[in-house]
């Protein structure tokens, strides 16, 4: 096993001229035999007070022998960082904690069918009473969650056993 490699977020805009959207992207290379891997904290360009989209895909089933969950963590200080050390068994963070589980089974399906999540901060005064959808079996309904507003977020995969080597790609899209 080795340390996971989480890239810095790259930020750009995509879309037709006046209607283009903010896009940030990062990749996480999970080293064989770690149980968890995580992104860096979300980048400067994300306005955490407004809704955003998370698109995520994996290069392979993160763990062919067990179930892997994808979770959202949040940070409450500028020092927020997920621990990505070698051999880590349980996700851990500096100045942050787990907010909720985003996907109950980060599986082979998500190598070809990406996940696209609506994120709506709890402070956003529109978009109301729709229940969270976080189960792969319900993905046809559209993944969605309301989340507590936090200064920073990170995305964390956690296996019941150990991860296989794979690459996760995350994209944030926002108006």
């Amino acid at each position, binding site marked *: 096993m080795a340390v996971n490699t989480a890239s810095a977020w790259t930020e750009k805009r995509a879309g037709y001229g006046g209607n283009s959207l903010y896009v940030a992207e990062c990749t996480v290379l999970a080293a064989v035999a770690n149980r968890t891997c995580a992104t860096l904290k979300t980048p400067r360009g994300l306005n955490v007070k407004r809704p955003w989209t998370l698109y995520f895909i994996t290069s392979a089933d993160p763990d062919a022998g067990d179930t892997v969950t994808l979770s959202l963590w949040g940070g409450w200080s500028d020092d927020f960082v997920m621990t990505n050390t070698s051999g880590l068994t349980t996700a851990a963070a500096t100045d942050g*904690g787990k907010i*909720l589980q985003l996907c109950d089974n980060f599986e082979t399906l998500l190598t070809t069918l990406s996940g696209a999540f609506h994120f709506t901060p*709890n402070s956003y*005064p529109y978009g109301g009473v729709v229940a969270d959808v*976080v189960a792969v079996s319900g993905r046809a309904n559209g993944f969605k969650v*309301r989340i507590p*507003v*936090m*200064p*920073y977020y990170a995305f964390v995969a956690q296996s019941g056993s150990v991860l296989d080597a794979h690459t996760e790609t995350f994209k944030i899209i926002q108006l």
Partner: protein
Amino acid sequence: MAANTASAWTESRVGYASNSLYIASCTVLADTGNYAAYSLKTPRGLNVAKPWTLIAYFSADPVATGTALLNLWGGYSDDFVMATTPGAAAITATSGGHIKELCDNTTTLLVTLPWICQITPNSFNSEGAVADVVTVAAIASGPKVRVPLMPYYAVGIDVAANVLDAVTAYYKIIQAKD
């Protein structure tokens, strides 16, 4: 036993400049043998009319031999304050009362995995009928509650059958104020 020590709330902003958020922090040192330990009333910077995030975590299991609850109290006048009499089994407040339970068991789990709870005032008219999540067993669903609008709140832990161990509780409030 002695009185608990609740710090004043400190207020600041955290996050990337233009998108930074309001954050208030306080600590409550529970003294051994008390039945409850509460924060001071929420600070001036909290806009109680808008949703906010409460983060709670602890230096250790607040009561190793029983169950400690995380509760929300509300105050209806400016002199709202939680009673701090050492050893008092009944939890009381001046000009306030118990609103609801925020977490059914502040276990050892919350030493490493903070309780991050969405709090939405009932007057906030855009989010409705999603059910409260207040059980540790459902932490992966994301803790959340709707609360009655009150001018002030206090958060804290209390036990029914045992007394608290010496523990430090850390509370943070985060809010988008604009």
